[in-house]
């Protein structure tokens, strides 16, 4: 394996920061080797410097995208940490539906929009879809709109396909849910159409402007800001505040905190979970 030199660490960390916002300091330099090492071989580069210049020179940006795909962490599971989904089921969705319904006819008067801001390969958004399907008798009547976005094209492509390998699915997903919502697909599993059609996926860089995507009632932004600098985290959550409905809900990763990051949100507790709302 080709060793990365100190000047290459600086060059590539800065480049990766510029294209993705992911902050790789010197203590995490090993990530560059373990995650980009393979690209040296596949793209015929003998050093990391070569890889950097090849990516910079490539007008199609294909190599840039490959670097983003390689450097992003796609550790995700169906129902990763069950508490946000319990929260969704017992607190957030009932409240949002109440707030968006006509008290007389009990009909929802506006669509309900949910955003998984770093959806990776789609597990989080599909877990949300499954939760909604199980909670609401006729989920389609509620005009629920699910959007998943991620910076990695490869992750978004897999999310769109909804196809998962055995090991990506066996953990986290109970067997009854697996049988109910997935069908065997070769040596893996494919999400069934009734769940698939509830979701839309797009590529999006969270550090660029995104207010064009509209407003949301519920936003999941879990375990992505941890890769950003404090300054970028501040910018991100301020922008999230802009696209969250005034009575909307924000859910962040269970070990993340908004203290000192965004004073516009206040933390609230429901049973064992925390969610955030605008002040």
């Amino acid at each position: 394996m080709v060793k990365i030199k100190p000047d290459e660490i600086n060059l590539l960390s800065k480049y990766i920061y510029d294209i993705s916002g992911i902050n790789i300091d010197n203590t995490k330099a090993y990530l560059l080797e373990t995650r980009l090492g393979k690209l040296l071989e596949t793209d015929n580069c003998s050093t990391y410097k070569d890889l950097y210049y090849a990516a910079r020179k490539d007008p199609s940006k294909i190599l840039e995208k490959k670097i983003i795909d390689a450097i992003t962490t796609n550790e995700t599971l169906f129902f990763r940490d069950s508490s946000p989904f319990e929260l969704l089921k017992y607190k957030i969705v009932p409240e949002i539906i109440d707030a968006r319904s006509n008290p007389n006819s009990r009909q929802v008067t506006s669509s309900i929009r949910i955003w998984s801001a770093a959806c990776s390969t789609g597990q989080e958004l599909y877990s949300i879809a499954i939760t909604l399907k199980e909670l609401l008798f006729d989920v389609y009547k509620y005009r629920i709109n699910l959007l998943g976005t991620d910076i990695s094209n490869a992750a978004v492509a897999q999310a769109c396909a909804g196809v998962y390998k055995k090991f990506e699915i066996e953990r986290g997903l109970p067997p009854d849910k697996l049988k109910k919502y997935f069908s065997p697909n070769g040596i893996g599993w494919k999400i069934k159409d009734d769940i698939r059609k509830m979701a839309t996926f797009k590529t999006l860089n969270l550090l660029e402007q995104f207010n064009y995507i509209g407003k949301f009632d519920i936003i999941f932004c879990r375990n992505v800001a941890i890769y950003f600098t404090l300054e970028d985290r501040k910018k991100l959550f301020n922008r999230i505040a802009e696209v969250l409905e005034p009575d909307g809900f924000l859910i962040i990763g269970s070990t993340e905190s908004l203290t000192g990051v965004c004073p516009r949100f206040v933390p609230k507790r429901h049973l064992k979970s925390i969610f955030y709302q605008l002040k």
Partner: protein
Amino acid sequence: MQNLKILVVDDDPVTLTLLQKRLKKEDYEVETAIDGVSAIELINANYYDVILTDLMMPGGVDGIGVLEAAKKINIKTEVILITAHGSVDNAIKAMKKGAADYLQKPVNLDEVLLRMEKIRSMKMLLKNANDLRDAMDITEQTSAETIQNLELALSEMEKLFTKVKTILAMEDVPAKERIALALEKL
């Protein structure tokens, strides 16, 4: 990791005994079934890490039938098919249905052992990854609790400070009283 528990299924008693003896010699835990029907009975009653089964068997349940039953009962069971020489098409069909591997007749015993060793190391890696995830989950849960409690405590504190600030800024109240009021809040 414990050694693999293997079920060998073959309607030819000679092959069956041969495979059983060789695998037992390597310390694998081995059980046998003489056809697909009795294999399924055993699979229903016990968990096997690996099922090594002949593809063509009499009695209405062939190797594919065993494969499908095994995967339905426990997806973690790995199945290796033994196919007649030249019937690679069937083997590929089986692989598509989730078989881990296939072997061609006549079965080379060393090859069987190599495949078993491969499955064993794969299962060990998987177990290791799962153990790591478990450890990560526990760490994550514990730190989440601490962080969330701090987050709420800080938010309460912030509210309190805002109140105190408002009281201290009340110009129409004498300074002494303001301080007394503020102290009361704290």
